[in-house]
């Protein structure tokens, strides 16, 4: 299994580190993901951090935590600037597990993982 980075995971506070840690515990493939922890940064600094990490790793897939979040806003701007890449907002653990277990880890795998993550949410017990 190559440790070539496949995707950035960016989110508020320790969100990304927690998810990547869980992915590694379950699959041993956490090294395929690069956690980006965002604390106390303005939008421009988040953009710079994402851009620098994408440049240094060659990664063009980004998972973020919250659709309305500053990481998502920054990621959309970066992808627009570089003219390529895939962003999935609303990442969860089932989604990232599916992504790291995929064969190639490209944009199609990210889209498929997004569907898997969406379908993995369930509610049990009383909803009253």
């Amino acid at each position: 299994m190559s440790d070539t980075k496949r995707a950035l995971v960016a989110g508020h506070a320790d969100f990304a580190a927690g998810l990547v840690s869980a992915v590694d515990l379950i699959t041993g493939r956490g090294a395929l993901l690069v956690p980006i922890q965002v604390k106390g940064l303005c939008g421009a600094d988040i953009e710079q951090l994402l851009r620098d990490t994408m440049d240094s790793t060659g990664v063009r897939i980004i998972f973020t935590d919250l659709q309305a979040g500053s990481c998502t806003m920054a990621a959309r701007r970066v992808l627009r600037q570089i003219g390529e890449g895939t962003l999935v907002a609303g990442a969860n653990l089932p989604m990232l597990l599916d992504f790291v277990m995929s064969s190639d880890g490209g944009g199609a795998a990210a889209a498929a993982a997004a569907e898997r993550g969406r379908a993995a949410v369930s509610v049990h017990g009383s909803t009253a």
Partner: protein
Amino acid sequence: MTIVLNRIDDRLIHGQVVVGWGQPLDVKFIVLVDDAVAESDWEQELYRMGVPPEMEVRFHSAEGAVAHLDGYRTEARPGILVTGDIATMRYLVQHGGVRDVNIGGIHHRAGRTQHLRYVFLTPEEQAALRDLAAHGAVVTAQDVPAARAVPLEELLTVREDA
């Protein structure tokens, strides 16, 4: 209801605004005042995408916002006004009658010193905040509703390590 929060936040619309403040205040609309965003359809779409469908977003330049503020204040629904910098809010205080200012996020940049975890200011920005108060605005720093509102004079006095 009316504009329930006039916020300075260099990230403009993001999680703290939409979820942290928006949900407990039952916010139905956000007024984003920023000259650059007001001229960019792409940026406006970006911010609209970040809010739930029941929450409306309106965009204005600083100058353009002034004519609409009285109307927003008489809206039946609660709303949040957000600017990305102190200068824009100062314009609204001076020309638009804004009287309560929440500092929600002014982050690190060269030349700024840290006052709170989420507030960094240059000497010029400190003076600009004092000018807001001199024009009658009550200025406090508070990133999320559960945090304590830090009065301006305390904010300008306190220094925190990065």
